[in-house]
């Protein structure tokens, strides 16, 4: 999706959202039947931006007439807590925040929302306007086939509408709130420096700019790699963890492959020529072009932040905005992750869902609708929410304070989300991801050739899928 298209849709949906939100300001809460005193929300401490929720707690209480009891846990503890609560059919938490990779295992325990979305009586607390959600984000994070949760919605660019989703046999299991995607951060001060621009142009015969293609990326990264001055072109998340898979699947999509890596029919779509080319390029950045700092093959997304923020690299891909450390004089700007023959930056979104066992499901739904509404998400921007709605991005890109604090981050974030590619929908994704991460890491360290590393992962993953009950067959 082009920037102009993105802004057009954003403008249209923004206007609708504003009108509806004004209309919906009413004292409906007090008159609604069976109002609970408290709704319990289970949330992620940092990963889904709990500060944004804290910011609107008072508003929530006054607007809905219900107290929101808000508990947060760090990522691993949260996953265990969510799964344990749902496994025990506990009704304690009315609302849950759910990360994308967990959802394939949870569809039977999360309340489907289409009936609630179609019930006008339940939608007077907030402007629903489903078409305001970025389709790629919505379909990847919230729309599942209840009978075959491993399948993705067939058309991820279709406008978001309940009838379209139901017609395909799919359901809506929550509304997206915090949407994360890989973007490319770069040192604007270096890129804008006339001396650097002149130097680059005389060496490569083109203007120095944030790279739009991976070929340009290599040129720019090589140009800025000056180990003697403690400066490197870029850094990567090549350590043996889920983050390495996110880097790899982004490149796989860029090289024209299926960024999901494993198809909905369980075909291995990563160990093919596109996958090998993508992984070879990744390993070459480290071992051939040598544009990364020492230690990159043990880096996670956290190390990428530390390295870029300390001024050690000119570019870096990450899921969030970057802030240079106090001692580093410079400026940060953002660009889309480069393309090769296509683009598909890795993304993953947190959704707010209703616990199937909650005793206050209608109220929980109202809360979800209000918390994910355009108006509430716009307020949450103050606490760096990564919104899931077009109209909120439209506001973000025209807000002078946000532009001052985050440069063009929100513009790039919104456009990146529109072209993002998610994960395969597997109940044992962490096992599968680990095998691919090991392959990527082995190729990155040079201990295995990319082809060998990816081929070695295939039988392991097939075995894991079989053990998890998937019919892999001869796929």
């Amino acid at each position, binding site marked *: 999706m082009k920037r102009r298209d993105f802004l057009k849709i954003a403008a249209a949906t923004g206007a609708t959202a504003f009108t509806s939100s004004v209309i919906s300001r009413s004292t409906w809460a007090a008159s609604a039947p069976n109002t609970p005193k408290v709704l319990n929300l289970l949330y992620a401490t940092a990963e889904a931006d709990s500060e944004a929720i804290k910011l609107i707690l008072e508003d929530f209480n006054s607007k809905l007439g219900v107290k929101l009891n808000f508990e947060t846990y760090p990522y691993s503890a949260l996953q*265990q807590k969510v799964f344990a609560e749902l496994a025990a059919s506990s009704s304690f938490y009315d609302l849950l925040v759910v990360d994308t990779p967990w959802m394939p295992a949870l569809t039977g325990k999360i309340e489907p929302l289409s009936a609630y979305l179609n019930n006008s009586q339940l939608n007077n607390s907030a402007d629903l306007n489903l078409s305001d959600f970025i389709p790629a984000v919505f379909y990847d994070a919230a729309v599942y086939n209840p009978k075959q949760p491993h399948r993705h919605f067939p058309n991820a660019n279709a406008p978001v509408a309940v009838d379209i989703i139901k017609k395909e046999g799919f359901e809506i299991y929550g509304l997206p709130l915090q949407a994360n995607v890989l973007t490319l951060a770069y040192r604007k001060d270096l890129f804008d420096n006339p001396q650097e621009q002149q130097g680059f142009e005389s060496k490569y015969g083109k203007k120095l700019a944030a790279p739009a293609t991976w070929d340009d990326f290599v040129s720019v990264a090589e140009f800025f790699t000056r180990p003697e001055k403690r400066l490197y072109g870029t850094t990567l998340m090549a*350590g*043996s963890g889920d983050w390495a898979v996110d880097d790899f699947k982004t490149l796989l999509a860029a090289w024209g492959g299926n960024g999901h890596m494993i198809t909905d029919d369980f075909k291995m779509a990563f160990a093919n020529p596109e996958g090998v080319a993508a992984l070879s390029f990744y390993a070459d950045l480290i071992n051939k072009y040598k544009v990364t700092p020492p*230690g990159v093959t043990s880096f996670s997304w956290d190390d990428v932040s530390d390295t870029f923020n300390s001024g050690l690299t000119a570019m870096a891909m990450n899921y969030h905005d970057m802030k240079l450390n106090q001692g580093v004089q410079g400026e940060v700007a953002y660009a889309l992750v480069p393309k090769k023959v296509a683009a598909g930056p890795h993304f993953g979104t947190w959704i707010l869902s209703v616990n199937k066992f909650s005793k206050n499901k209608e109220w929980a739904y109202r809360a979800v609708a209000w918390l994910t509404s355009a108006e509430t998400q716009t307020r949450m921007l103050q606490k760096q929410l990564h919104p899931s709605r077009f109209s909120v991005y439209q506001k973000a890109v025209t807000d002078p304070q946000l532009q001052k604090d985050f440069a063009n981050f929100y513009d790039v974030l919104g456009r990146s989300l529109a072209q993002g590619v998610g994960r395969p929908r597997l*109940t*044992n994704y*962490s*096992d599968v991801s680990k095998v691919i991460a090991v392959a990527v*890491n082995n190729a990155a*360290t040079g201990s295995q050739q990319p082809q060998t590393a990816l081929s070695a992962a295939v039988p392991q993953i097939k075995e894991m899928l079989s053990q998890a009950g998937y019919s892999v067959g001869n796929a």
Partner: protein
Amino acid sequence: MPHGQNPFSSEGILSWALLTPAIVILLAMTIAPSLYLLHSSFFSFTLLNPDLKRFVGLQNFLQAFLDPTVRQNIVVTLQFVVLAVTIQLFLGLALACALAPQSLTNVVGSTVLLLPFAVTPVVSALIWRQLLNPNYGWIDYYLQKLGLIERPIEWLSTAPTAWIAIIALDVWQWTPFIALILMAGLQSQPREPLEAAAVDGASLWQAFWHVTLPQLRPFIVIAVLLRMVEAFKTFGTIQILTGGGPGRSTELINLTLYRVGLQNFQIGAAAALGILFLILLSIIVSQLLRILGKNTELLA
């Protein structure tokens, strides 16, 4: 209950009544979960779909046995425990010998010694990760300053250096634990045998080898045993420091257990893996006790 007392006497009944709560708690907290673990290991199911639970006999065990990754994890775990505990034992013994004589300096030294193992393992791993960072970590910085290396070592990027890092962290954190146990052993030893050895003309080394060490043996057994059990349970430090990488070179079995049980929630598979590991651990510990505990009162 005193030995030989009639269990049906009033005192016997009172004793049983007093013991019953503790026995019930023990059964509920240890025996029942263990039995449930064993039961679960024969079934294939996930936490969220207990309704789809199906009996698979020994299939979970077979899969764990045949899985090359699990076998590699077990080898890595044994390698880690043997290396770490052996180094800790020797360093701990040396520290204990140095700090055993009662003096003000040694009291201060012993107190300082306590610090590393007072630090939460996860925190220590986070700190070590920063120290080992090849771009701005202190370790590479000072090694370069001292002229010992020309360029930074990428500690966590290659298998040999990652191993040095994880063993070094474990040794730094847990050597004081062994040292303190052995120090207590040394301080409780009577002086007379050493004095007799000195009178008989034994050298310091001979006195240590033939007098001190045999008397210290029960303490060594306890220290090694406790440390080994703890080392087998290592999880947080490795998860933070290397995540099992590079590749799978430092992936302990506990990291796999965590992923299968607490990320994928495959309860049957995780239970089988846990039981296999428990059996392996029991065999190793009992053999170790038999060897180390020879001629000590521990096995009497």
